[in-house]
């Protein structure tokens, strides 16, 4: 919601935005637009401070900027929407769009995405914000994943660090066994997420999809216990239970834990985002860590290779009383140079095509593999109750990892519960 300091309008009347399509709202008094986003850390705080100030100056609008942690993001936005106090513009994971649309909280932005502005995005990226035939946001950030490996550990175990042969899951397992059996390697071979956290699902789905399994069918009904799914979960749990190539107690480890282990040089391999490499590079430059690493594509399974793709959107809330200014803010933030700075500093894949084509990304050791991984991108299904769905899947993963249930039984039970929940 926009808090109006004056009566109407603001800015210089031109509202030029980045591509000259801004609305402007003539007038004299200053308005304020509320921008809510998540996970603004030290690496990106200055970016928002500077650009919010630039927008305020250019449009004569006050930007009320709020950042919350991801843990609180969903609850914060839901509370504000339910309380009639939604921000004007907010960053929001695309997979949660159905829930917001379900309560009529989001404003369609087809006018933006179907016009010249929408041509900035690759078709696949733009489609990531579509639901029921409409765009309910502008792609704000994207991320996918690759497999990191510790070159020093590979070399110590007698593996070729420059040609690590990590094309399939079986290749990965062979390398993990070699690392585990080597007397020269003291770190665990593979990071496996199994904690009670949403990200445990996102680490596991690579295995699930690559074994030909799906999460829901075309009607949106759960299909989590197919033969391929059982094979995938069996492989995942055997990494720990049978082969013992993971860190101790995967059930205690979140995705962040195993990423941190790798970044410290205390792990052989991990599936991670681009910022894992960026963090290590920074630590190397600061003299905090001293090991070399490589990045390859997430291994493929019998049914192919997938890299979990996540898109966050920048959406306008229906409750906003000044949607034109909100659109101006969005256009402003999608200036090509701003997007370049954002992706560079934040460590997210560029969503604007022209930015992704810059040498900074295509020629980079850290970014190159992730740009390439775009061809293996696969997003989570858009379900209004995806969080509940994912929680149940995480429970199944945990039951199998704890050896409480066989993968078949764990997935059968999950399937049954999910059918009940979705009927």
């Amino acid at each position, binding site marked *: 919601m926009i808090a109006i300091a004056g009566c109407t309008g603001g800015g210089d009347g031109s509202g030029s935005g980045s591509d000259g399509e801004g609305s402007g709202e003539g007038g004299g008094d200053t308005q304020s637009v509320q921008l809510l986003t998540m996970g603004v850390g030290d690496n990106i705080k200055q970016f928002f401070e500077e650009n919010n100030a630039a927008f305020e100056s250019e449009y004569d609008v006050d930007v009320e900027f709020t950042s919350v942690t991801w843990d609180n993001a969903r609850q914060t936005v839901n509370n504000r929407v*339910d309380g009639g106090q939604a921000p004007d513009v907010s960053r929001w994971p695309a997979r949660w769009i159905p829930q917001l649309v379900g309560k009529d909280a989001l404003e369609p932005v087809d006018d933006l995405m179907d016009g010249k502005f929408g041509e900035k995005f690759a078709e696949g990226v733009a489609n990531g914000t579509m639901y029921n035939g409409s765009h309910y946001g502008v792609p704000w950030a994207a991320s996918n994943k690759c497999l990191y490996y510790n070159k020093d550990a590979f070399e110590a175990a007698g593996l070729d660090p420059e040609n690590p042969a990590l094309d399939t899951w079986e290749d990965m397992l062979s390398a993990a066994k070699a690392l585990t059996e080597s007397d020269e390697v003291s770190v665990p071979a593979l990071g496996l997420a199994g904690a009670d956290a949403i990200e445990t699902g996102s680490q596991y789905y690579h295995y699930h999809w690559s074994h030909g399994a799906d999460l829901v069918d075309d009607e949106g009904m759960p299909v989590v216990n197919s033969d391929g799914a059982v094979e995938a979960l069996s492989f995942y749990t055997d990494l720990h239970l049978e082969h013992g190539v993971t860190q*101790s*107690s*995967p059930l*205690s*480890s979140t995705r962040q*834990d195993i990423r941190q282990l790798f970044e410290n040089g205390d792990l052989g391999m991990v599936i991670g985002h681009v910022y894992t490499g960026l963090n290590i590079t920074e630590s190397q430059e600061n003299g905090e860590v001293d090991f070399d690493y490589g990045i390859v594509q997430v291994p493929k399974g019998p049914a192919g290779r997938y890299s979990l793709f996540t898109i966050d959107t920048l959406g306008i809330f229906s409750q906003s009383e000044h949607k034109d200014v909100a659109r101006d803010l969005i256009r402003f933030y999608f200036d090509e140079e701003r997007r370049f700075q954002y992706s560079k500093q934040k460590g997210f894949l560029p969503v604007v095509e022209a930015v992704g084509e810059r040498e900074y990304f295509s020629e980079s050791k850290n970014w190159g593999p992730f740009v390439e991984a775009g061809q293996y991108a696969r997003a989570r299904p858009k379900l209004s109750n995806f969080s*509940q769905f994912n929680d149940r899947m995480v429970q199944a993963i945990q039951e199998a990892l704890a050896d409480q249930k066989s993968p078949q039984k764990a997935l059968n039970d999950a399937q049954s519960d999910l059918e009940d929940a979705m009927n």
Partner: protein
Amino acid sequence: MSLAEEHTQTGGDSRLSQSAAHVKRNRRAYLLIAPAALFLVAVVGYPILETFRLSLYRSPADSTIETFVGLQHYVDILNSDIFYRLLWQTGRWVAVGVAGKTLLGLLIAVHLKGDIRGRKFFRTAFLIPWGIPYAISAVVFRWIEHPQFGYLNAILLKLGVIEQGIGILGNPDIAWLGVVVADIWIGTPFMAIIFLAGLQSIPQDLYEAAAIDGAERWHQFRYITLPQLKSVILMATLLSTIWTFVSFDTIWTMTGGGPISTTATLVIHIYQVGLQNGHLGLGAAYSVIGFLLLLLFAIVYLRVYTRGGEEL
């Protein structure tokens, strides 16, 4: 009208008129307490009634549509295995947590009452855990118990007790104990301070007389301290039981109710069902059941401890 009915009617009229007269006589007093009473109704009564009303509806959080389902949620809950598992896990969490806090608090209080060196320092030091926000303490304990980064495992590894880090909070069999330890650490200072205050109110003469009679320290504790502290222990454990039952921060921060929901209590489940998964009606029904269980516990507890007419 029969005589009995006439008597009842008369008696009723009489009581009504007595009440009216009483209110009239004390009108000023009632006016003075009216704001407080209204406030209580607004901030205590209304949320309770609203929770009960909500429990009779299927009410998804992502929609404004509410469908009346009567007592269906209650029937579903009482017929579900999850509910009885939650009862067991909640009971285990409360019983061990409150017992730990009570025993440790009593032990600390007895020692702090004695004339030990640095008594003032220890009295202050023992209060520190109580002064730290629960969530912060929980984060600290989560890190202490972390298999790769935690002090506990680092020490055990250094001593050669274990060969690789143990993930206490990731082990479905012992994760709840890992959380209970944190809860006991957080809650013990309150119990210690309350018990210390109670101990200081016990007349010293009783101990002197017992000592002259040759009573040993254990007998003094058994026959003087405990009986004298009875009412204090009753109130402290009752409060601690309620707080532990509704405790959310520690469990949520340390495990989120996992792994495999083994550390989830009724309160954690209410949050997951009602707010995370958006089933407000079902979550409200769980809340009402939890409220009734606590109420029942408090009534039975107080009855048992005040048996024989002894007042608190």
